[in-house]
């Protein structure tokens, strides 16, 4: 398949790995930001082919995982209301809230539907004018243009029965938080290619300079990741800290201006709590005043949410790259996909899910 097979070529990957081995002279710690990249690394076994001392740590780039528990509990409360059709991406359905998850809400009679695009939720709202249709808008910059388009279409159509529960988050503030944490070990980043497809990478230039870390905008296939690692290691060995773009087939420096425009029209930047990272200033998006009527949090009174995190779940440390999933005492024992303690075990981009799915050995 074009644009896939050539980026999975084992010979090319091996050549890049060989180049990495030649360049590396010291131990380095690089974080791949996106959960999709984590999955490719673990699935392909690429991380186990890297030279000793070159360590990849897994970043917070799983939007489902970083969505705070109180927002998930809010989603569950809204989804359980009889007049609501609750539309969500499939990733969210198994994510545990304080006491239940969307699949269980559905089994108990809630109308919970999996959609593949936010525009599907708008269509559901048109088809069911007598019901309240709520879309759970989760995701990084990659997903925001599609949800912005959905709400702007709903307004154009005059749909008073459509709203969105927004949990959008932005990547650069999370990278900043990781770099400024006292125990930070991350010396370079593989930035999430698809986020940069939308936003470009101008923001990263200042970030790289401010913290003196190399950042490589990187794709999602084994060849992409091997090349991204090589570019990062070259910079580290040379003492440079610039932004390189490995993912040139999808990313331009300025990003996708049309997508940025619709996002800027519909959303405004806000402070947002992240699971495991706490409240990060200017790290999220909320509907702007012009679209406030489509905010599900306003439409449904569900403010009295007290979220109860599992005391055993260490997903906060996992999301900051401080703990490898298989180093968590609960991993594979008290935390499995059937009985997850936290979102990273069940989200398709979660680091714990990657280790569970592809790890060559699991705790018995």
């Amino acid at each position, binding site marked *: 398949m074009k644009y896939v097979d050539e980026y999975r070529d084992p010979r090319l*990957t091996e050549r890049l790995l060989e180049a990495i081995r030649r360049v590396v002279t010291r131990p380095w710690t690089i974080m791949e930001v996106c959960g999709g990249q984590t999955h490719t690394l673990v699935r392909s*076994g690429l991380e186990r082919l890297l030279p000793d001392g070159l360590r990849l740590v897994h970043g917070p780039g799983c939007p489902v995982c970083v969505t705070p528990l109180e927002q998930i509990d809010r989603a569950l409360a809204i989804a359980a209301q009889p007049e609501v059709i609750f539309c969500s991406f499939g990733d969210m359905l198994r994510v545990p809230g304080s006491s239940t998850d969307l699949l269980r809400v559905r089994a108990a009679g809630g109308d919970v539907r999996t959609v593949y695009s936010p525009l599907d939720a708008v269509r559901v709202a048109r088809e069911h004018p007598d019901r309240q249709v709520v879309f759970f808008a989760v995701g990084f910059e990659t997903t925001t243009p599609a949800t912005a388009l959905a709400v702007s279409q709903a307004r154009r159509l005059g749909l008073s029965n459509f709203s969105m529960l927004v949990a959008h988050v932005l990547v650069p503030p999370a990278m900043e938080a990781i770099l400024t944490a006292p125990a930070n070990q991350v010396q370079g980043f593989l930035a999430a290619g698809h986020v940069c497809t939308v936003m470009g990478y101008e923001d990263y230039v200042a970030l790289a300079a401010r913290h003196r870390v190399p950042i490589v905008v990187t794709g999602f296939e084994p060849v992409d990741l091997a090349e991204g690692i090589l570019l990062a290691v070259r910079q580290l060995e040379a003492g440079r800290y610039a932004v390189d773009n490995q993912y040139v087939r999808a990313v331009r420096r300025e990003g996708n201006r049309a997508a940025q425009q619709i996002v800027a029209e519909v959303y405004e930047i806000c402070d947002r709590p992240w699971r495991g990272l706490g409240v990060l200033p200017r790290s999220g998006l909320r509907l702007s005043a012009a679209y406030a009527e489509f905010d599900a949090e306003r439409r449904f009174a569900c403010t009295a949410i007290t979220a109860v995190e599992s005391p055993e779940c260490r997903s906060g440390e996992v999301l900051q790259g401080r703990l490898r999933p298989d180093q968590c005492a609960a991993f594979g024992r008290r935390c499995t996909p059937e009985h997850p303690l936290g979102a990273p075990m069940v989200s398709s981009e979660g680091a714990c899910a990657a280790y569970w799915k592809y790890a060559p050995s699991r705790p018995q």
Partner: protein
Amino acid sequence: MIACPPPYPLPDSILLAHGEGARLTRRLVREVLLAAFDNEFLRPLADAAVLRPIDGRVVMSTDSYVVNPLSFPGGDIGCLAVHGTINDLAVTGAEPLCLSVALIIEEGLPMATFARVVGSIRDAARGCGVPVVTGDTKVVPRGAADQLFVNTTGLGRLNPAVDLGAHRVRSGDRILVSGTLGDHGIAVLSARGNLELESDLRSDTAPLYELVRALADAGVAVHFLRDPTRGGVSAVLHELADAAAVQIVVEETALPIAAPVRGACELLGLDPLYVANEGKLLLVVPPAAVAAALACLRAHPLGRAAAVIGTVGATGTPEVLVRGMLGRLRVLDEPSGAPLPRIC
């Protein structure tokens, strides 16, 4: 001249009265079902069919079909319900002899849809030379079922010459599939309409008895045979690994996968190993029988894309591994539920 008035046509949708045992029920049974399936065993419309004596060990299998939408590229719930049960008999080593068909209909189902599915059951059963000898219809109120549920039960005669099962699987045996993987699951997913995937992909729903018989006739030493339906190849391999207490290694680069299925799986974050097939065999054969098995499969229209996809490894710990594109082994996870498409 006075012409007899024509009988009232059947209503254009299924009513609760069609299931209440009175005149509408009898008309539905006679005018639609018997008209389609007519044979000497069904014709008396008795409470049970009386069959001819069966020589040999009798094999019985039942399955219920609840697919949404009822029709999809390459088939519908009708042919699926026939092929599914016939295939369960075939992979057990049995020659299918007859079927029962039970229909649970949601009130309001268009009569034309019902007639089309019944026609599809008829054509599929005839295509396999297997009569529908008994059946049942029930109508449930709107909302109590999703349009139409079909149950089929099949009887077959065991071929005494074959001995299939996990007990015969040995370390070193090879794992084969008879063709491309995941066609049915992706065809149904794309027919649901909300994906807007456009492709010429069709479900692979097909009866596999002929293919199984060809293997038996050619004397291919098959140790284990299954049709990897719901749960895909992964589900069958995990069952086999557990039952035979063996390690299984699948070669990712050897999997036959049609381009549209690959594309859809890439897009949705699904793995074709977990996606359903409805017209494929998964075989385990000793290394010496691989060439004969492949030749036999590829000589049949349903086995053209047959391939060796893996090996049975050491005995002891049940485990299914995949050798990925970079040559590294990873666990093939057994998902806890249906795979869910991802966000981005």
